[in-house]
């Protein structure tokens, strides 16, 4: 029985990884063939780094993801603090609306924002591009920030804020010295989540970017629509390795932190 489980687990891993490894192997293939291996080459990697469209869309993706995740973290942190002190009914309403971009299919969020932007472009001197893309990214990022922070308030003593003020803090000081440190883990995980979702997003960007602004996923999409281009294989390989290294480091750091914590005992 145990053996059977191991074999099953291995088969699932095979299913998950074989397609990626095929891409990696073919990224070193000499010809453009997608089925016959002929010889080793690094040509596709060289071509990739000389492809201006890919490099510029990569830069744009990183810029958008950075800006969107910073703005949405600030907006979302203040929002979470405010929502937490609301009464039950308005709180439930705001949380339900906040959940919408998460529950709704991405395509619906994408077209709904597109309709709004079309409305603006028709009436103002305003075009689809960087700004619409940034707004769209912030819009789907903020809910993740808020949802990461809200549970932290449940763990926090609601009297702490008032206690700090009784002891002579101004409301601003109480916020900085008491509330912020308590919710910080949620803020950080919200920021990271927003950043990765922004980096990875295709569907919503596709509807809100317009013809001139391309993020990396949009460039990848247009590459897959055209003829076979082995540069995609090279790009996949690089992305896989980057993701792999980041996750290994993250896992290592977390394990170490967990070990350290168990020595020091539970943090209060």
């Amino acid at each position, binding site marked *: 029985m145990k053996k059977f489980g191991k074999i099953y687990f291995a088969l699932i*891993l095979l299913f998950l990884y074989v397609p990626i490894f095929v891409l990696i192997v073919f990224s070193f293939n000499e010809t453009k063939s997608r089925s016959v291996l002929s010889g080793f080459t690094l040509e596709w990697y060289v071509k990739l780094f000389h492809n201006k469209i890919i490099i510029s869309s990569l830069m744009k993706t990183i810029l958008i993801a950075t800006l969107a995740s910073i703005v949405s973290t600030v907006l979302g942190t203040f*929002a979470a603090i*405010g929502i937490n002190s609301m009464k039950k009914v308005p709180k439930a309403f*705001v949380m339900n609306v906040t959940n919408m971009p998460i529950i709704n299919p991405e395509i619906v969020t994408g*077209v709904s924002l597109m309709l709004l932007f079309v409305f603006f472009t028709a009436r103002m001197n305003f075009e689809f591009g960087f700004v619409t893309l940034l707004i769209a990214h912030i819009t789907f990022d903020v809910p993740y920030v808020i949802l990461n922070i809200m549970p932290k308030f449940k763990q926090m003593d609601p009297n702490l*804020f008032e206690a700090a003020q009784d002891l002579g803090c101004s409301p601003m000081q109480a916020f900085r010295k008491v509330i912020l440190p308590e919710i910080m883990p949620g803020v950080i995980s919200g920021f990271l989540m927003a950043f990765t979702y922004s980096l990875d997003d295709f569907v919503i960007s596709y509807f809100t970017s317009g013809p001139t602004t391309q993020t990396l996923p949009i460039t*990848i999409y247009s590459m897959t629509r055209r003829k076979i281009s082995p540069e995609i294989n090279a790009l996949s390989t690089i992305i896989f390795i980057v993701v792999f290294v980041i996750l290994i480091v993250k896992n290592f750091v977390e394990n170490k932190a967990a070990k350290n914590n168990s020595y020091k005992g539970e943090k209060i």
Partner: protein
Amino acid sequence: MKKLKVFSAPYLVWMIVFILVPLLMVAYFAFTTDSGKFTIKNISNVGQYANIFVRSIWLALVATVVCLLLAYPVAYLLSRMEKHKQGTMLLIVMLPMWMNFLLRTYAWMTLLGNNGVINHVLGIFGLGPYKLINTSGAVVLGMVYNYLPFMILPLYSVMEKIDKSVIEAASDLGCNSASIMWRVIVPLSLPGITSGITMVFVPAISTFIISRMLGGGSNLLIGDLIEMQFLGNAYNPQLGAAISLVLMVIILVIMTVMNQFSPDDQVLI
């Protein structure tokens, strides 16, 4: 804490302008003509595409069931591993999900193509070539491959919390392993099952990339239909909005049904 309410003001403005208003605009477009007059023609026109709706629901359903069947043992095996192994194994299972899904889907184009890897390997044994790509099977495969981790994660996170002593108690009281599975583990993992189903079904029913890359032109889904109304040659945002609205209603119904099966305080999403 009352004073803190004002902190949410900037977000509330943002939320109204960029979440609420756009969704209301979808509803408005769905019920108006070009010139802004009220009409239900857009909604009734959606009926012409009933076959596409049926196909989308069917393929998404098949993909969801396959994901559940494949993921359940994976999540169970993960949750039974030694604690220090679990984190690493979960990381390995989730790693492919961190690659952009366009690249993951592209990988299957390479494998399934008429001159692709699978047909080439089969050809060595004198088999094929088979038509693998541009079939509905390829679309389901693409959905399963892309969304399997979305099923594994919620299942694992409920199973990991199942108290081992409950299972021991069941076996002490005479359950064999099959009845432990059916009468203890499955009921306790129900919230994971329901949220896994929604997390796979919602993106599967609304995708347009997977059907376009792996389904060729003959396997249009709701997502393709919407995309064509907004960015394709068939530009018709009113119809596109109506289709989006119907899609949202379908998903709302599915989620309501799913929530019936899981206790209120345990909804994962």
